[in-house]
């Protein structure tokens, strides 16, 4: 279970959110660009530090004091997959697998390799991949150590729809079977609806202005800005 209260000052506004997510749940954090969504994920991941508040994951306190990054059972995927360019695809994917536990993870790595269609790229240098390929490798690398919490910060931006659909379907399946908690951030409602179909939170200027199911959001948007975001093009 993830419990968090995060306060973080930004130049334009103060981010102040409270989260409570059941284990295995998937939540879409929705809002316009610059609403503070990525900052919240970065605070939970430990990339940024909240000014005040607390973050607790499955009984382990992540903040305060800030738990070192390597002790956080968190997978964090951003728009830039940040692959290690000096390593091959396989080395990237297996990077987070504990060195003495490779056997235990063998089947899981094979599943990731097959489902994310990485077999043809397996020995290729990570520095030579296309954007879509790199995103798939980044996803595999993040999931390989089986994190308890998965944070996705617009990981599908710039990918074609077919790729996005496939990746989302894989993630939804693994979220259900592996029971990791997932928070996804995007400014496109259709991506989040497919990825986190049950639960959504809407962020505006650092505050959660509405939370509920997607049908609730669509039928009665709490703010004019949200109405505009949910309206078809």
């Amino acid at each position, binding site marked *: 279970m993830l419990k968090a209260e995060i306060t973080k000052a930004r130049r334009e506004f103060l981010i102040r959110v409270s989260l409570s997510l059941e284990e295995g749940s998937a939540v879409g954090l929705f809002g316009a660009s610059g609403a503070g969504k990525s900052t919240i994920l970065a605070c939970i991941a430990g990339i940024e530090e909240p000014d005040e508040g607390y973050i607790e994951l499955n009984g382990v306190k992540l903040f305060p004091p800030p738990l*070192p*990054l*390597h002790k956080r059972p*968190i997978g964090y995927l951003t728009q830039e997959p*940040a692959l290690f360019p000096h390593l091959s695809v396989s080395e990237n994917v297996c990077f987070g697998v504990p060195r003495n536990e490779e056997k235990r993870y063998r089947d899981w790595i094979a599943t990731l390799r097959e489902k994310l269609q990485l077999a043809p790229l397996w020995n290729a240098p990570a520095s030579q991949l296309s954007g879509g390929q790199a995103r798939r490798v980044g996803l595999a690398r993040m999931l390989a150590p089986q994190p308890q919490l998965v944070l996705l910060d617009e990981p599908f931006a710039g990918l074609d729809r077919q790729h996005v659909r496939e990746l989302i379907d894989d993630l939804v399946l693994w979220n259900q079977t592996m029971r990791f908690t997932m928070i996804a951030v995007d400014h496109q409602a259709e991506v989040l609806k497919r990825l986190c179909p049950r639960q959504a939170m809407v962020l505006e200027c650092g505050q959660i202005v509405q939370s509920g199911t997607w049908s609730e959001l669509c039928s009665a948007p709490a703010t004019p800005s949200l109405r505009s975001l949910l309206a078809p093009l």
Partner: protein
Amino acid sequence: MTLSRRWMARIGAAMFAAALLYPLIALLARIGPWQWDAQVRATTLSSIQVSLLLTAYAMLVIVALGTPVAAYIARCGTRERLFWQALLLIPILLPPLALGILLTLAFGPYGSLGAWLQHYGVATTNSATAFVVTQVYVGMGYYVLGAVAAFDAVPRMLEKQAALLGLTPTQVFWRVTLPLSRLGLAVALSIAWVRTIGEFGAVVVTAYYPSGMPVQLWVNLQSFGLPAVMPLLVAFLAVALPLPWLFHVLAQRQRHAQG
């Protein structure tokens, strides 16, 4: 018109390159047969040995001390980083002769540290120790500043991702930071190498003996004239130039490939 302009630019650049490399032609200067008799040979070979061996020791010290310091500076905030960079510039900007005199005063028998070391049998002037210590002071700033730049070039997000994948800070350094900065570190080391192995001003004050190549070149020039200098000059260029040159070319190639 555009084409001829480009050719004019090329010819201009070629002339510039020729002027830059012109001093190397002096190796073919007509100064008579090079002197390589027993007297010159013995001191020349000995100076090559001294320079290579002691500079290698100095490099080990520079890398062992300078790499963690550079890694630390690369993670510092702006103000602290400026302080360290200003500090490292001091030995770089000190005139070599002044540095040599300062080192002699600090580590020689006139200083309390030097006196204490000599009491325990460590000769701090005109000794291999003095030679290495001087070279470390000469080269450290070059290496550390270069290493900081090499570490700076490693994207922080890669290190953070590696940490989130369960690697401790030490493991992140060995598995991500170091491999990604190795060419930059090699360039920094090669600059420190060429700077220290070629150091004359400071070394001639602190460690006239054992004579390394620069001091021996000067001695040969004073004692026997130009023909006795040429063999050592060729050896000097051969050990000082190729390695840094190669690392720089490789680094430039990598930069272009990434760009």
